[in-house]
C-alpha cells in the first residue's frame, strides 16, 4: 500500500519535472526575441541590449531553467515581458474569468448530461433512449466553437439578448458578468454534457444489472425508489471519474471558446502571450495547465488504486 503511494508520488514528481523541462526547452527553440517585440521596428541595438539585460535574457539557459523552477516553488512566477507586472497577478486577474467559466460549464454539463443519461437508462431501448443517444452523438460531433458561433448568431446578433463577446468585468455587476459568461459556458458545456449523458447511461445500465439492485427489486421496492436509492449512487462513481478526466479537455476547450467570445481569461492570455512572445507568461501558464491536468490524473489514479487493489498490482 505504502509502496504503491510512494511509487506514484515519485512518478508524479518526475512527470512534473519532465513537463517543466519539455516546456522550457520548447520555448528556448521558439524563434523571436522578446526584447525586439517590445521595442519595435526602429529600436537601437543599445536599447535592445539594455532591455535584454533587464529581462534577464543574458544568462545561460540552465541557469534560467533553475531560476524558473525555484521561482515556481517559492511562488515567484516572474515579471511579464509585455505588461511588466508579476505573472502571478496577471494569472490572478484572468482566473476571475476562466474559473467561473469552467465552473459554469461543469455545472451546466452535469445538470444536462446526468439527468439525460438517467432518463435514457430508465427508458432503455425506447424512443427517449434513442433521442438522448442522438443528442449525445450530435453533441460530440458539433465543434464547440461553431456551437458558440451559432449561439452568438441567434442570441446576440439575432435576438440581442446577450453580448456577442467581451467581458465587462465583475465590477460592472454580477448580472452583466454572468450574462457575458452564459453563452460561452453553454458552448463549452455541450460536448461535456454529451459525454456525461453517454457515461451516465451506460454506467446506470450496468448497475441495474447488479445483484443488489435485483435484490432491492425482488423485495418489491417501487422502480423509481430502486433507481434513486440504490443504483444512482453506485452508478455515479464512474461519472465523477470521467468528469475529473475531462478536466484537461475542458481547459483546452476554454482556450478556443475564450477566443471565440473575446473573453480576457487564461486561455486567451496563453494564446496572446505566444503571439506577443511573452515567454514568461507562456511558460508559467502552460506549466499551470499541464500541472493541473497531471495532478487531476494523479488524484484519479490514486483514488482508483485505493478502491481497487487489483489496479495497484497491475500498474
Amino acid at each position, binding site marked *: 500500500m505504502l509502496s504503491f503511494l510512494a511509487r506514484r508520488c515519485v512518478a508524479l514528481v518526475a512527470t512534473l519535472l519532465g513537463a517543466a523541462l519539455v516546456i522550457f526547452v520548447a520555448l528556448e527553440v521558439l524563434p523571436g526575441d522578446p526584447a525586439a517585440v517590445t521595442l519595435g521596428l526602429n529600436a537601437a541595438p543599445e536599447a535592445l541590449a539594455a532591455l535584454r539585460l533587464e529581462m534577464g535574457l543574458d544568462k545561460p539557459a540552465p541557469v534560467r531553467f533553475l531560476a524558473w523552477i525555484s521561482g515556481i516553488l517559492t511562488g515567484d512566477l516572474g515579471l511579464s515581458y509585455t505588461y511588466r507586472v508579476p505573472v502571478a497577478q496577471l494569472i490572478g486577474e484572468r482566473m476571475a474569468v476562466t474559473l467561473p467559466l469552467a465552473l459554469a460549464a461543469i455545472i451546466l454539463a452535469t445538470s444536462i448530461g446526468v439527468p439525460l443519461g438517467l432518463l435514457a437508462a430508465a427508458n432503455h431501448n425506447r424512443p427517449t433512449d434513442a433521442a438522448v443517444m442522438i443528442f449525445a452523438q450530435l453533441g460530440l*460531433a458539433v*465543434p464547440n466553437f461553431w456551437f458558440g458561433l451559432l449561439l452568438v*448568431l441567434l442570441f446576440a446578433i439575432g435576438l440581442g439578448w446577450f453580448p456577442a463577446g467581451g467581458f465587462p468585468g465583475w465590477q460592472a455587476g454580477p448580472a452583466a458578468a454572468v450574462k457575458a459568461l452564459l453563452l460561452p459556458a453553454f458552448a463549452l458545456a455541450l460536448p461535456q454534457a454529451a459525454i456525461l449523458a453517454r457515461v451516465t447511461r451506460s454506467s446506470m445500465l450496468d448497475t441495474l444489472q447488479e445483484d443488489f439492485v435485483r435484490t432491492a427489486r425482488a423485495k418489491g421496492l417501487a422502480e423509481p425508489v430502486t433507481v434513486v436509492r440504490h443504483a444512482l449512487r453506485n452508478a455515479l462513481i464512474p461519472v465523477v471519474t470521467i468528469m475529473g478526466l475531462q478536466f484537461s479537455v475542458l481547459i483546452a476547450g476554454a482556450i478556443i471558446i475564450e477566443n471565440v467570445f473575446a473573453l480576457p481569461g487564461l486561455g486567451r492570455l496563453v494564446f496572446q502571450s505566444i503571439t506577443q512572445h511573452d515567454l514568461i507568461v507562456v511558460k508559467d501558464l502552460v506549466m499551470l*495547465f*499541464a500541472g493541473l491536468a497531471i495532478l487531476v490524473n494523479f488524484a484519479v489514479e490514486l483514488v482508483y488504486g485505493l478502491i481497487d487493489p487489483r489496479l495497484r498490482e497491475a500498474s
Partner: protein
Amino acid sequence: MTRAGASAPVPAKRWWTGPSFLIGFALTGVIVAGALLSYVWTPYPPTQMMILNRLKPPSATNWFGTDQFGRDVFSMIMVGARNSLAVGLGAVGFGLVLGTTLGLLAAIRRDGFLDNLIMRTADFTHAFPAVLTAIMITAIAGPGMLNAIVAIGILNLPYFARLARGVAIQVWTRDYIQAARAAGLDNVQISVRHVLPNVAGVIVVQATIQFALAILAEAGLSYLGLGTQPPNPSWGRMLNEAQTFMAVQPWLAIFPGAAIAIAVLGFNLLGDGLRDAIDPRLRRSR
C-alpha cells in the same frame, strides 16, 4: 466511455445493416465523395476571387453564397473536405503506426524498462491539454498543414499505444505464443506474426473514432489560425473569417460548421458500427 455494456449483443443481425453503421457510412460517403469530386470538378475554382461579387447570400449561381473575396463557398467547402480528410489520414496514420508499434514493444516485457518508459511517456503526453500541445508545436514550427498533422498525430499516439499494449498483453499469455517461441521465433517476429493480427481489429475501430477527433482538432487549430493556410480552403479557417462578417452574412458561419459536424458525426457513427461488428469477436477471443 465504452458503449453501454448492457446493450445485448446482436449476433443474429448483420452488423453492416445497423443504423449507426449505415448513417455513418452515408455521411462519410458524402464527405469523401465531395472531396474526390473536387479533384475533377467544383462549381468555380475555389481560389478564384471576384471582389465585386463579395458577401453574397446563397443563390442559384453560388449555392452557399460567396465570401469576403467573392470566392464561391460551396467550392471552398468541397476542397476543404480534401484538407480535413488529409489531415485526418495523416494524423491518425502517424499515431496509429507509431503508437501501435510502441504498444506492441511495450507488451513484450510487461512492466519491463521499455514498457515503463513507453507508458509513462504516453501518460505524460496524454496529460497535456491537447490544444495547448498543438499550439506550442505550431508556435515553434510555424502554422501549416504538415505541422498540424504532426501535432494532432502526437496527440493520437498514447491512445493507440495504450490500446495496442492492452490487447497485446493478453495475447502474449496464450499457448500458441509459447509454441511460436519454441519454434525459435524472436520477440519481434512473434509480435508481427501473431500479436499484430489480433490487435488490428481494435486498432481499426479506434482509428475511425480518432479520425473524427482529428477532424475536430484540425478545425479547432485552423480556427485559431494554426492549421491549413491560405489559399488552401479549410473549414476551420472559413469559420474564423466568417465570424467577422456574421452580422452581415450569417450564412458564411453556417455551412463550414455543418460540414465539420457531418464529417465528425459520420466517422463517429462508422466507428460505433464497426465496434459492434468487432466486439463479439473480441469477446470470443478472450
